[in-house]
């Protein structure tokens, strides 16, 4: 897909920041597991925290394709910073942009979009993963408040977020029609955190457990109407898939870049690595897979920008980019030989980061179900 000049220029701008300020931090974030507060601040200054949100709501006023490019470029140098950006923009910002009323947008969307506040999305529960509608967290209306009780797990940026959108059911017997979405602010009484997870990769991204014990949430924090929760989170995840596809693409490109660099600078049995046909074969395979993934991701973003149906294409983009991304990240290690598993080279990080792209925001299996449903029309 041939990008317009405005998208190309935007990529150049994001790349300059990514290579200049983020890349050098990636290995350290992976080792320390610290959250990159400073990079979040820089992304806010550069208007990257809500690329696709209109300027009147504090965003950059650009489109989904710009946003996908931003996530790709950040993810290319640092998966942890990339997943922060994707989760904040698609899961923290979007539900309020999509379903919030004017008052809610003024109160929460603007500071989130400007990056003054960090957003997060509490959907997954210990027993509600792929089956997201099986939420056990409950919300009971009491006067001007909802009383929320329950627990959420695997919540990206959960314990560092200022504003969280959570789902809870008012009536489990109604299934997904009983689910509503609420905004919860950090520090609300009855809202606390369990442990942050230790993970295979994405060590610089915080993954939290959220605990709600008779947590009082004002009725003005309800997004949309009661029972709108399912519609809101499905729409959120549809768009979120584009960002995870973009991140999978970026991480895969980062792995390819590392493999290319290694092939150009090392020798195997006395001959430059890149001159070996087996190296060329792997590089070609990775590059072709990644380019195909890029087309799918950009296509899904462009369709959403044009207001056309994009659910199938977004699921395909996420499924394909994460599948070939893991394969490419695996090959990138192989090109390094035994040095690829040591801390002499950053290459083993890519597959550890990339693997989550096959799981988060809908596993590959769920994506296949979404795609099949669309293709079969049933």
């Amino acid at each position: 897909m041939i990008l317009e000049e405005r998208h190309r220029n935007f990529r150049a701008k994001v790349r300059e920041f990514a290579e200049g300020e983020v890349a050098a931090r990636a290995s350290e974030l992976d080792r320390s597991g610290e959250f990159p507060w400073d990079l979040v601040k820089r992304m806010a200054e550069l208007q990257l925290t809500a690329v696709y949100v209109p300027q009147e709501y504090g965003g950059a006023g650009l489109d989904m394709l710009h946003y996908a490019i931003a996530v790709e470029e950040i993810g290319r140098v640092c998966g942890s910073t990339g997943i922060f950006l994707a989760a904040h923009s698609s899961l923290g910002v979007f539900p309020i942009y999509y379903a919030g009323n004017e008052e809610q947008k003024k109160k929460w969307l603007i500071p989130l979009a400007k990056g003054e506040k960090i957003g997060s999305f509490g959907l997954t529960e210990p027993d509600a993963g792929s089956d997201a509608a099986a939420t056990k967290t409950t919300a009971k209306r009491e006067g001007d408040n909802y009383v929320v009780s329950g627990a959420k797990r695997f919540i990206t940026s959960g314990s560092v977020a200022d504003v969280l959108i959570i789902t809870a059911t008012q009536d489990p017997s109604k299934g997904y029609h009983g689910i509503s979405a609420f905004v919860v602010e950090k520090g609300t009484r009855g809202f606390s955190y369990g442990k942050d997870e230790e993970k295979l990769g994405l060590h610089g991204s915080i993954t939290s457990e959220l605990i709600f014990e008779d947590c009082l949430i004002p009725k003005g924090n309800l997004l949309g109407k009661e029972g709108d929760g399912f519609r809101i989170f499905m729409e959120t995840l549809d768009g979120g898939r584009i960002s995870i596809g973009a991140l999978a693409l970026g991480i895969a490109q980062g792995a390819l870049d590392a493999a290319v660099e290694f092939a150009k600078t090392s020798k195997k049995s006395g001959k430059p690595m890149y001159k070996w046909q087996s190296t060329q074969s792997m590089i070609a395979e990775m590059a072709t897979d990644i380019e195909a993934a890029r087309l799918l991701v950009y296509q899904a973003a462009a369709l959403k920008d044009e207001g056309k149906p994009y659910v199938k294409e977004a699921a395909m983009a996420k499924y394909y980019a994460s599948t070939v991304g893991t394969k490419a990240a695996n090959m990138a290690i192989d090109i390094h030989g035994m040095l690829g598993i040591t801390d002499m080279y950053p290459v083993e990080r890519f597959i550890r980061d990339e693997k989550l792209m096959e799981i988060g925001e809908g596993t590959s299996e769920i994506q296949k179900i979404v795609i099949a449903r669309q293709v079969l029309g049933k």
Partner: protein
Amino acid sequence: MSLFTINSAQKLIRSEVSKFTSTEVETVASDIERDCRIPSDILQKISQMGLFGLTIPEDYEGSGLDVTSLCIALEELAKSCASLAMTVAVNNCLVNYPLIRYGSAEIKEEYLKKIANGSIGAYAPLSDIDVSGKECVLEAVGDIKYISNRYHVVLNGTFADFFIIPVKSDQGISLFLINKGAQGMNPYGVATMGLRSAGITGLEFKHGELKPDMCLVSGESGQQAIQSVLDYAHIGFSAVALGLMQASLEASVKYAKERKQFGRPIAEFPMVQEMLAEMKIEVEKSRLLLYEAANRFDADEEYRMIARIACLTSCEGAVKIGLKAIQIHGGYGYIKDYPVERYFRDAKSVQLLGKAPTDMRLQIAKEMLL
């Protein structure tokens, strides 16, 4: 009927090692991973069970068992802790084997007996990839050589009492034995993706002394010797990978039966069943290849080609299965509360400490094209 019959000694070793891992290793496997260290009492027990000297002849106070027995022991160990299995694999395949095959009578007498009584040896695989551009420098003073070189990956490095080092020169490759703490030898820390407790270090030599009586093999036969050692090690690495595969599969079956989504165990969904089936196929395929290779070695038949195929298949399979096990576990597979992410990292590490898959394929092809 199975293609392979397991004799009573082999049955015994499986039950002994499995009993040991279930009582002493499984309970501390996550501590071992967190601390990046195998506790010394576990290493001591491994030694007391005769596992470090498993393939050392009884004349040298070893256990005198065959390679099939070694594979069984490694497979069982790797199911609980691949780092521990790797330590035993390296000692038997990359240390004992070259000592037995190429060591002088004096070296055998001294070092094999040491291992049989609790010493651990290290091996520094020679990579054909050159990243530094610096060549290994050898200086000769009389009949003593001095080496200046860097080995980025030394297996069993932190545990070892002595090291087997391949040294490349114009005359070919030699294998030297060097005692721990020898002059000019500086170990340095290396962090690895997996096998984080297997004692992997880097080793730098600055004018390190190579004594002529500590040379196992040199000159033209050196290259061939190293290849023989590596071919033999393929069997051991393959067994470690097989244990990891088995662990990934068992964890996945258990999780799929327990985890409920959409009102039923996820094991009832065809997409999950397909993944489990593919995993099982990989395990069985690898097991047949591995024990075929081990049997051929024990029967003194040509085994090298099948060992390479076994190693390639089981290492690739272990990586693939490791990733699938994470997938089946979903979010839980990605966190350290469950062991499957470790199985994957360990599998990828075993694979590349052996031989990169492309190189292994080329070697298999070359053998046919000779």
